[in-house]
């Protein structure tokens, strides 16, 4: 039982990092994308493939996952240089589908629909991490470091400029600020953090498969950000706690798994709707409409 609870907490830590990294884009810079699930997958597959074929460990794999996540995120950023808003939604959704198709169809590299098994566990000072408790400690520290980095980033002048872009892109532009470069940096940091979360996930579950990284994963991460409160960082983390723990709690209802799965999704959808109507600024934000 304790192992189970600690295991859930490890997932909370991973999704918390994902939600915080997406908040940097949505909450701070005002860039709405539906692709975080695929970026998460990019990190997971990168580290998994490197571990299986080149014998990379967790640390090397994580580094590569961050680079991969950042680069793919850069790819999505390119459309936002020319056009914004609605096009970014379409482009990110399109990239999500393309990446998911890659995970699903590159059989020789990703293992196709069957996924990849036997991804090695992380090693720390020569010992392999096996228990959920050690995972929780290691991942909490790593996740906290990345979140701290993002926190410092948004408190810095750089973060203020991101907020200025969110409020009105023309103002920082008129002041001679490099709006395009700022957006690209936000995209890359966010993507790199998502890639890192992916690597942590792959080396924890030790198995990756395409359906974990489909559009519904992206929607789930978006929901965490909204429920927690956009533009607050700790809010989205709280959102991740709610949306990971709540479905797990439903597991204890006396229902067969065929009913439980969809029922969990219905509950999650309802939570999301309630927040949209009652607390559109999330748990961390105040009452009322958005700014």
């Amino acid at each position, binding site marked *: 039982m304790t192992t189970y609870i600690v295991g859930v907490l490890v997932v909370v830590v991973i999704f918390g990092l994902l939600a915080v990294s997406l908040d940097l884009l*949505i909450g701070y810079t005002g860039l*709405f994308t539906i692709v975080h699930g695929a970026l998460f997958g990019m990190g997971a597959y990168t580290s998994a493939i490197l571990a299986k074929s080149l014998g990379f460990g967790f640390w090397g794999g994580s580094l590569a996952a961050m680079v991969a996540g950042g680069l793919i995120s850069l790819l999505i950023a*390119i*459309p936002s240089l*020319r*056009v*914004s*808003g*609605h*096009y*970014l*939604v*379409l*482009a990110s*959704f*399109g*990239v999500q*589908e*393309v990446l998911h*198709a*890659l995970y*699903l*169809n590159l059989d020789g590299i990703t293992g196709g629909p069957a996924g990849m098994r036997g991804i090695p566990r992380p090693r720390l000072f020569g010992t392999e991490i096996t228990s959920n408790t050690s995972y929780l400690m290691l991942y909490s520290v790593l996740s906290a470091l990345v979140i701290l980095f993002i926190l410092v980033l948004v408190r810095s002048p750089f973060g203020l400029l991101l907020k200025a872009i969110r409020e009105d892109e023309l103002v920082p532009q008129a002041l001679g600020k490099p709006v395009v470069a700022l957006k690209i940096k936000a995209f890359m940091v966010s993507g790199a953090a998502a890639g890192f979360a992916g690597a942590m996930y792959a080396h924890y579950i030790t198995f990756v498969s395409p359906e974990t990284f489909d*559009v*519904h994963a992206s*929607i789930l991460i*978006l*929901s965490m950000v*909204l429920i927690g409160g*956009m533009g607050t960082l700790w809010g989205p983390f709280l959102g991740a706690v709610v949306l990971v723990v709540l479905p797990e709690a439903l597991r204890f209802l006396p229902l067969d798994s*065929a*009913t439980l*799965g*969809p*029922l969990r*999704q*219905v509950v*999650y*959808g*309802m939570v*999301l*709707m309630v927040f*949209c*109507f009652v607390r*559109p600024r999330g748990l961390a934000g105040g009452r*009322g*409409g*958005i700014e």
Partner: protein
Amino acid sequence: MLFVQLLVNGIFAGSIYALLGLSFATIFSTTKIWHFAQGAVYTLGAYVILAASLYGKLPFALATALGIAAAAVLGVLSIVALYRPLQRRGASSLVMVMASLGAMVIADNLVVLGFGPTGYSIDVSVPATLSFGPVLLTGGQMVAPVAATIVVALYLWFLFRSVHGRRMRALIDNEELLLLNGVDTGRLKMLAFAIGSALLPCAAALSIVSGSGISPYFGIQAVLTGAMAMFFGGVDSIEGAAVAGLALGIIESLAAFILPTEWQTAVTYALILLFLMVKPTGLFGRSLPKTTL
């Protein structure tokens, strides 16, 4: 010959995509709402057709009519019960998108609870398969383009010849001017939601006729296809979305000429996105959308 066969397949897929594109464009261009719950309307419409013809033993055409009516009601409900109350509360467009996604998640999974996670297919009597040498033309492939052309023609007639249609096109460009002329744009938007939603079961029916099964989670794909078609055609051109949808189907099918079939969709999306980066106004669009998310 493979090329001709792929072209035939492409025209068939394209006629369904044209309807999806029209549906998305009708709602998006007039209201600027990312109506992801359209995916749920598509799924629910398809399941109404399924329930009516499988359990109600109704003829397929009648079942489709029921599906269309149900979808139109759901469309009006989405704006009246979902988007308008949210707008009244001052919700940002981001919150509206999330509410839309939430509604889709709920509806899709209620379908799973009601009908199970596996897909269904319905047997519809269609003309027998014709063969022109090595090129095969199935019954569904004959029916779909004809039916789609009729629906698109009727809709375009409405859009360009009727008062409400003209007002809907005016709504794309300038809502304030319409309001100044004493037009109730709120009702006009409800009409757009009703028509846009009613087009979805038409598309679903055509894909059922061709023997494709329906399953609970296939709605979101329809939304993406519709959105791709609309942006490809140009955001301010409803009729452009129909042409772009047809083109999308043909491109997707012809992609199989050089690539394995499982890459069709991914390659098509990538091509459209590249095209939009070069020409954001799309094939027929004149201007870019003003509002940003």
